[in-house]
């Protein structure tokens, strides 16, 4: 595991970039715990300050330090991504593995339902949920809600892996030695699918971060919790564009773009590494 990461880090520039970005933002998330200001408080610092040594990115119209605000926002957005991704991973793995292994009519029914979740326009449905829940939306609830809708595509991917795994010799050995279906899938098949789970997790986190930004811009999340989305929301509410307070509006936008690009490169790099055909090409190129 460690060696693979090191090799990819040295050989694949996309991995180098993505990994650096991820590590950087994770470190920032931990540093944000030391924040000297209360992020919910308004007017904790003087308003409208330009960048200076004391406030490296200046302060905004509601009296918050933009740099610390952005760091806490990064932490919260990553946390939200982790919660939602964890939930949708569990659903995707259970659905994909069981449906692929069982096959037959069970598989058909489950797959028709999964396809429906792929096709359905999730954005309006999430808005419906968020509007009704508005008052009680906190990070965890939002993570659970987004997680419940983001599993379908990956379930399909995991299932296709299982379809080939279950024809292999060791599956039959396991069946004949009397292991239960659940155990076979969990202990024999899951380890094979696990690298793929990693790659899809990153993609899912990207989707969740984007969804959070979109819901927040509509005012449909807990606007007191700083996240990348709520930072943009407040900046726009206070007309940061017209006041030309670029330090306020562009900080969250830049973080969002860099974070998503980094994660995306990480995931393309990993999934190419996992695909034996492209790995052969890499070897041939030298």
């Amino acid at each position, binding site marked *: 595991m460690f060696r693979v990461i090191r090799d990819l880090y040295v050989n694949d520039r996309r991995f180098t970039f993505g990994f650096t970005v991820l590590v950087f933002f994770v470190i920032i998330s931990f540093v944000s715990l030391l924040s000297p200001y209360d992020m919910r408080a308004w007017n904790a610092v003087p308003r409208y300050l330009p960048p200076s040594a004391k406030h490296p990115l200046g302060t905004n119209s509601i009296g918050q330090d933009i740099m610390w605000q952005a760091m806490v926002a990064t932490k919260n957005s990553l946390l939200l991504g982790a919660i939602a991704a964890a939930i949708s991973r569990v659903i995707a793995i259970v659905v994909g593995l069981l449906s692929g292994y069982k096959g037959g009519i069970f598989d058909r029914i489950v797959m*028709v*339902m999964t*396809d*429906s*979740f*792929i*096709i*359905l*326009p*999730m*954005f*309006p*449905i999430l*808005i*419906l*949920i968020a*509007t*009704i*829940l508005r*008052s*009680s939306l906190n990070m965890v609830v939002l993570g659970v809600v987004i997680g419940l809708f983001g599993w379908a595509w990956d379930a399909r991917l995991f299932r296709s892996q299982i379809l080939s795994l279950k024809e292999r010799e060791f599956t039959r050995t396991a069946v004949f030695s009397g292991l239960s279906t659940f155990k076979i899938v969990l202990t024999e098949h899951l380890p094979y699918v696990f690298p793929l789970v990693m790659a899809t997790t990153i993609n899912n986190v*990207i989707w969740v*971060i*984007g*969804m959070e*930004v*979109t819901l927040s*811009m*509509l*005012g*449909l999340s807990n606007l007191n919790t700083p996240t990348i989305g709520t930072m*943009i929301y407040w900046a726009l509410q206070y007309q940061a*564009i*017209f006041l030309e307070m670029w330090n306020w*509006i562009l900080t969250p*936008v830049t973080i*969002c*773009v860099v974070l*998503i*690009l980094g*994660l*995306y490169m990480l995931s*393309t790099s990993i999934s190419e590494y996992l695909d034996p055909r492209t790995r052969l090409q890499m070897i041939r190129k030298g």
Partner: protein
Amino acid sequence: MLKKYYIPRLIQYFTVLFIGLTLVFVIPRLLPSNPVEHQLSRMMSQGQYLDPSAIEAMRETLEQLYGLKGGTFEQYIDYFKRLFTGDLGPSFTQFPTPVMTLIRQSLPWTVGLLFASLSISWIVGTVLGGIRVSFPRSRLARLIELLIMGVRPIPYYIVSLVLLILFAFLWPVFPMSGGYSMGVKVGFNARFILDLLRHAFLPILSMVIIEIGGWFLQMRNVASNIVEEDYVVYAEASGLPKAKIVFMYIMRNAIIPQITGFALNIGFIFGGALITEIVFAYPGMGYLLYSAILSGDYNLIMGINVFSIVGVSTAMLIVDLIYPLLDPRVRYQ
């Protein structure tokens, strides 16, 4: 053919409809807060004094309107009955106007945006993808690939916002919001059409930028297998012009899967159109949804949901039904 292709597609279509519409029915009833109480408390917080019997009467009316009367199962049957007749109930903030009328007014804008952005991104993405594969050593092709793939994962909202800041604020060549300028006479004349295009340019551009990536990637993957096929090698060996090989041999064969990809992405792209409209205040369904969120018009949000589900799944069905006409391999299976 009928049994193997069309019947499963129809089953899929009705399942999507059923699951989607049931979700929209179940979600508000599963969640702890009650839309009727929510609506009532909103009205009371606006400072109106209502005596208890009036509140009771209001509650009764609202429950009737929202189809919340009777047992859950009865409500469910009633819900589908109303949907079949195209009745989505009245909008709450613009009271007796039916939700359906509001949707019908904003639908052409969204359809126009979707149609324009999809056709442009499909053509550009497909052609660029084909060229990228045909000229693997070209620096320019690689640069284009890097740019396209770099924008692809960024959320619709961020791309629209950045374009808005760049081309409507810092360098104001395009208007910031709206579908057409105030004071321009609506009609089929050059001035109005130009104005329309100027307003639609940035929304379409931001959607095209993101959507190109998907078509490009898929085209690249499919075409890179085709390049190694014997008939392409043969065409190259017999000295056919490169342009002919690229367009007639490689792309013609890689185009078909591009259409299946479309059917699966249509829900995502539709959501993107809604987001883009909100950023540019473009008067389509997305903006309608936004105003519904701002005013807490729960029935309008429900209606837009129902309409999106029916619209997206029907579009998918149409694409699936046309598909065999385009691909002889499916037709003669």
